[in-house]
Structure formats: structure tokens, C-alpha cells
């Protein structure tokens, strides 16, 4: 578990930020839209209970529960994840500072392990590895980075009764992005709700994973992904990310975003 968590770090929430595009007419500028997605209003703060439920190719199910708080500090966003279940993971915490993409700074992250009774700094440079051993990688759940790819608008498609913009994202040289491990993505965006509803990930031309939103809710005026699945086409299996009991703008104190909360957990 240690190594899973050590290698972990990042923002589960931003999965939700994997989501938002602004564009309504047929001729869109993908880079601009992605910047709007990245900077989408997700409230001043948010608190959620989340469940990561991983079903492996042999049918083994591993479930993890956590509490998460996030807050905007200008262009910076801070988050704390506090694991509450199962027992061998409970008490573990992750603190994350995400910076404005233009600053060129990598995220800062810390991991608290109850067995150590201290927090450890985590390197955040490479994000292609699995997040907590799930089918999500660190790159999948980090705050959207527009400059990882170049984009091509491929018009609109109908999906589940919604009109979605289809955008192809490719690396400039056609090779894997060394940070994310992907060479291409196919992104389907609900422009009205500013959410990515489906995301296909490719490596060396091979379709390796698919992210799909199964349920959305309007919570306090913010469209919130409450049920999403990442399916792994290489290893088999899938991971569901469920967001429960979400509240926005409750005035979470600045002081909650430090190592003290990592140690004591989110109450």
C-alpha cells in the first residue's frame, strides 16, 4: 500500500476538471476552450466524500473511501485527501498544491503515512503511473494542462441525448508525452455544461483506456461528476470514481490546507 500511496498524489477532483470545455458553435478553438476548462469555476471551496472502486480483470474488487477538501487561493488550488477506509489505508493523507499552468511550476505534494507518523514529500514530475494502483494515472486526475498537446476540432457527435464536441489531442511529435504517457487523446465535450463526458487515451496508436461519465448532478449551481469510470483496455478491469455528499462554498478555512490536517484527518 505504501508504494501505491507514495507514488500517488494528485487531485482526484480534477477528474472533474478533466471536464469542462466552453464552446457552443461548430467552429471552436480547442486551445482556448481547454484553457476555459482548466480555469472553470468550481467554487471557492468544495468538500466531498469519494469512493474509488477498482474491479480487476480477475473480478477482485478493491474499494477505497476518502474525504476531500479543496480550496482556491487565487490561481493556485490546494486540496487534502484523507483516506477513511479500508483499514489498511485509513489515516493516510495527501496534501496537494496545484499552480497556474503559466507559472511552469509542478505541483507540490506531501503524503502522510500513519505508520511513519510523519509526512513525506512526493515528486510530481512523472504522472504516467497508476494512481493508488487503479486504472487512473496521476496524469488523468491532475489539473488539466493545455500545453501537453496540440488540438484539432472534429465537429460534434450525439451521445446519450447530448451534443458533444469531438476534439483530437496529439503530442507535437506524435510520441508519448513523457509526463502523461499518452501520445493522443479523443475528447468529447458537453459544451453547454462545460464537461468532458468521454475521453479516449492512446499510446503509440493503441487505444489503451477510456474515461466515461455515467452521472452528473447540479449541486449548488455547479455541474458535478458523481459517477465516472476508467476502463483499461490493456490489462482489463475498470475503476469507478464515485463522488458523494458534495458541498460547495462552505467557507473551509485556509488553515485546513497544511500538514496538520494530513495528520489529524478531515473531520
Amino acid at each position, binding site marked *: *500500500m*505504501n*508504494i*501505491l500511496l*507514495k*507514488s500517488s498524489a494528485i487531485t482526484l477532483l480534477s477528474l472533474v476538471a478533466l471536464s469542462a470545455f466552453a464552446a457552443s458553435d461548430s467552429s471552436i478553438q480547442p486551445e482556448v476552450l481547454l484553457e476555459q476548462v482548466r480555469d472553470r469555476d468550481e467554487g471557492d471551496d468544495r468538500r466531498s466524500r469519494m469512493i474509488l472502486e477498482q474491479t*480487476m*480483470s480477475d473480478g*477482485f*474488487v*478493491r*474499494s477505497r473511501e476518502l474525504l476531500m477538501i479543496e480550496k482556491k487561493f487565487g490561481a493556485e488550488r490546494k486540496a487534502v485527501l484523507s483516506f*477513511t*477506509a*479500508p*483499514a*489498511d489505508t*485509513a*489515516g493516510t493523507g495527501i496534501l496537494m498544491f496545484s499552480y497556474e499552468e503559466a507559472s511552469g*511550476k*509542478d505541483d*507540490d505534494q*506531501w503524503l502522510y503515512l*500513519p*505508520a*511513519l*507518523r*510523519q509526512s*513525506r*514529500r*512526493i*515528486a*510530481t*514530475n*512523472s504522472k*504516467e*503511473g*497508476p494512481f493508488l*494502483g*487503479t486504472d487512473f494515472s496521476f496524469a488523468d486526475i491532475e489539473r488539466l494542462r493545455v500545453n501537453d498537446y496540440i488540438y484539432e476540432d472534429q465537429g460534434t457527435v450525439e451521445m446519450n441525448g447530448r451534443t458533444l464536441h469531438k476534439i483530437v489531442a496529439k503530442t507535437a511529435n506524435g510520441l508519448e508525452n513523457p509526463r502523461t504517457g499518452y501520445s493522443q487523446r479523443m475528447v468529447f465535450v458537453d459544451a453547454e455544461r462545460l464537461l468532458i463526458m468521454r475521453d479516449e487515451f492512446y499510446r503509440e496508436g493503441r487505444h489503451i483506456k477510456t474515461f466515461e461519465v455515467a452521472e452528473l448532478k447540479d449541486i449548488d449551481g455547479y455541474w458535478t461528476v458523481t459517477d465516472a469510470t476508467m476502463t483499461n483496455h490493456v*490489462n482489463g*478491469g475498470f475503476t469507478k470514481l464515485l463522488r458523494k455528499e458534495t458541498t460547495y462554498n462552505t467557507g473551509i*478555512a485556509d*488553515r485546513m490546507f*497544511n*500538514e*496538520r490536517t494530513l495528520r*489529524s484527518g478531515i*473531520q
Partner: protein
Amino acid sequence: MLRTQLLLVLLLVNGAVIAAPSFSGKGHVEARQQQRIATAEGDNLGQRYEGLLEGQVNSGRLKANTILLGRYRSQYDDATADVRDEMRTDVELRELYLTWSADSFEIRAGKQQQAWGRADYFRIVDVWNPLDLREFLLPYFDNYSLGRQPRGMLITDYFGDTWEQQLIIAPERKATRLAPAGSDFAVNSMPANLPAVNEEGNGLDIGWRGKTFWSGNDIELYAFHGYHADYMLAMKNSLLIREQPKRNMIGTSLARPLGDWVFRTDAAHYMREGRQTDVGIKDGSRTSALMGFDRMKNEWMLNLQLAATHWYDKESNHHDVWESSISVDKNWSRYRLTTSLIWLVNLAEDSSQLWRATISYEFLPQWKASIAGVSFVGKNSTQFGQFDQQDRIMLSLRKDFSL
């Protein structure tokens, strides 16, 4: 201890917000079969059982934490009375402390742990909780917190905008717990019949830590005044006694990412540090420093550390001590396997090594089976080599649960 309890009562009476309490708890049980390797001599290692319960009660700003631990080692069923009493069974209220939190303050009082520093395995500035070495470092590898001894402490944290400051007062003495003579991990240098303990002096440990995050760096400063964690032997009034020499330390830590790596370091200067010599305890001074590098990628974790200690003591011709460690962990999450390899090296006059390899498999949710091997290499006079006959394989079954 009485003062600590009074303080807690005062906090409760004076404005600690009492909300409806909530309880959370977890624990584990573990059974372990142990076998000596090849030519190693000694009793049958038998079975080792461990059970742990951990609970937390939250009531607004006030929180109570407790940990109960029980262990049984069948190896010592037939040992001499002294060894059996010390080694066969543990039933311990390991931790019990209250935490009172305000916006910028936090106070923790009771039997607890506080880790200082950024090092693994090597304790450069981690001075507060002495180790329990009855099974040498083996429990420490499994779970750092179970290898250390909690003690009564009053810890006050102040969370400023730039700096976090921590003041610790430990009013009771606590010393490293050693394996008794006749048990597997009894150290060479201690006599079979331990002399009486001398606890003259106030016994108070006091320390301060300042912590800040600056330009991507985690920076910590430390100061400590108190007692060495180890008992040493001295002559007093023609009698051999054990006592903890006094210790004064200042130190610092730093951690920062470097690309795919994290760099971390601890450094400390002990202005006053006792050292065992042939004629008793000698006060001296030393400087210790550690550099560590961690790299994590695709469920691999590589950890490298190098530590050095230099004594400022011309008379004794004491050697500098070099220590290093390499650990490699790999999580094969698709196969629910975890593998780990640790290699520790100690170099003073001669070198010695400790190897530990583990494979763990989660065959059902929260059920794990693991096999681990431990080997000690070196001369009998060295840190790890003195346990050269204690190489072993351990097969464990563990269940974690929530309450």
C-alpha cells in the same frame, strides 16, 4: 503526568467546544511462523502473534486517540524466567493522548509519538521516542510506529502564516528497550546481569521545532535539551550503574523535489553527547548528517540514503561512522503483489550489513499473506554482524479490519 492531566481538565472546562462525539476505529491481527535459516543456531523460533486496536473519539475541538497492542512469542515459552517475562508476552496501552485544536494552536498531551526529521531507518534528529530493540529493527521495518516507544509528552503546535512552531516537553524518562541476555537480539556489549539504573537529574526533555515551506523547499529547524535515548554503563561510588547521559542538539532538515527524485537531508550537531567508553561514560560532541534520494515511477520506489557521524574527540581515536541504505519497493497492483528489498550497511571499524526481502499478496480484501527473509552479515563485533546467527524466514498472515 498529573500536571498534564490537570491541564487537559482545564482545557475542557475553559471553552473546549464539546460536540456530539464520533468514534472511529481499526486494527489488525497477524500470525507469523518463523524459521531459522540454514546454519543458524538457537531455539525454534516458533510462532509470533500480534493484535492491535486503534480508536479515535472526536468531539469538536477535542479528540482522544488510543492504541492497544498485544503480542505473544511462543519461542520464549521455555526460556528462563527473566527472558520469558521480558520477551514472551506484551500487553500494552501503547498510546493514549488528547488533542485540543484551536484555529492556530494545537495541544496534544499524553502517551504518544512525535517523529522529527526526514530520514528512514537512521535517526539523525528523531530524538523523542526511543526504539524497542527487543526484536532489533524487525518490527520497525514492518511499521515504524511499532518499533518506537511512545512516551508521555506535552506537545504544543502553533501554526503561523509562514512558520509552524512546535514545543515539546517530555517530563518522564524513557530509554531504548534492549533485548535481555539470552534472547535472540541481545547486544554484545551489555552484561548479562544489568546493573541498577541511576536516574539522578530532573529527567526532563524539552525541544523546539520550526517548520516552513519556502520556494518549493520544506525546511525544519530543531533544538533539543535532555537525555540520550540509550542507557550507558558507568562507575559511581565503586558501583556499576546504568544511566542516560545528557544530550544537547541543534539540527535542520530539508526536502525538495528534483525532477523525478525527491532530495531530503537531515543534519544535526550534538554539542553534548554521551558515549560509552571502557572506563565509563564520556561526554563529547558529534555531528551527524544524512542525504536521501527517493524516486517513484510506475509503482517502483527507489530509496537511497547515506549518513555519516563524526566525533570531535581526539583522545579516544574514535572512528567516524558511515551508514547507508538502499531500498527498492515495487507494487504489482494488477497481481495484488507487493515486493520489497532493503539493504542496510554500517561501516565503523568494520562493515556489516542487513538484508531484508519481502513478498506480500492480498488474496482477499484486507487479508494478506507474506513471506520475508532477514539476513545479517559481518563480524561479531559489528552492528549487524553480532546477529549473524539470527537469519530467518517469516511467513505471515494478516487481517486488517475496521471497527
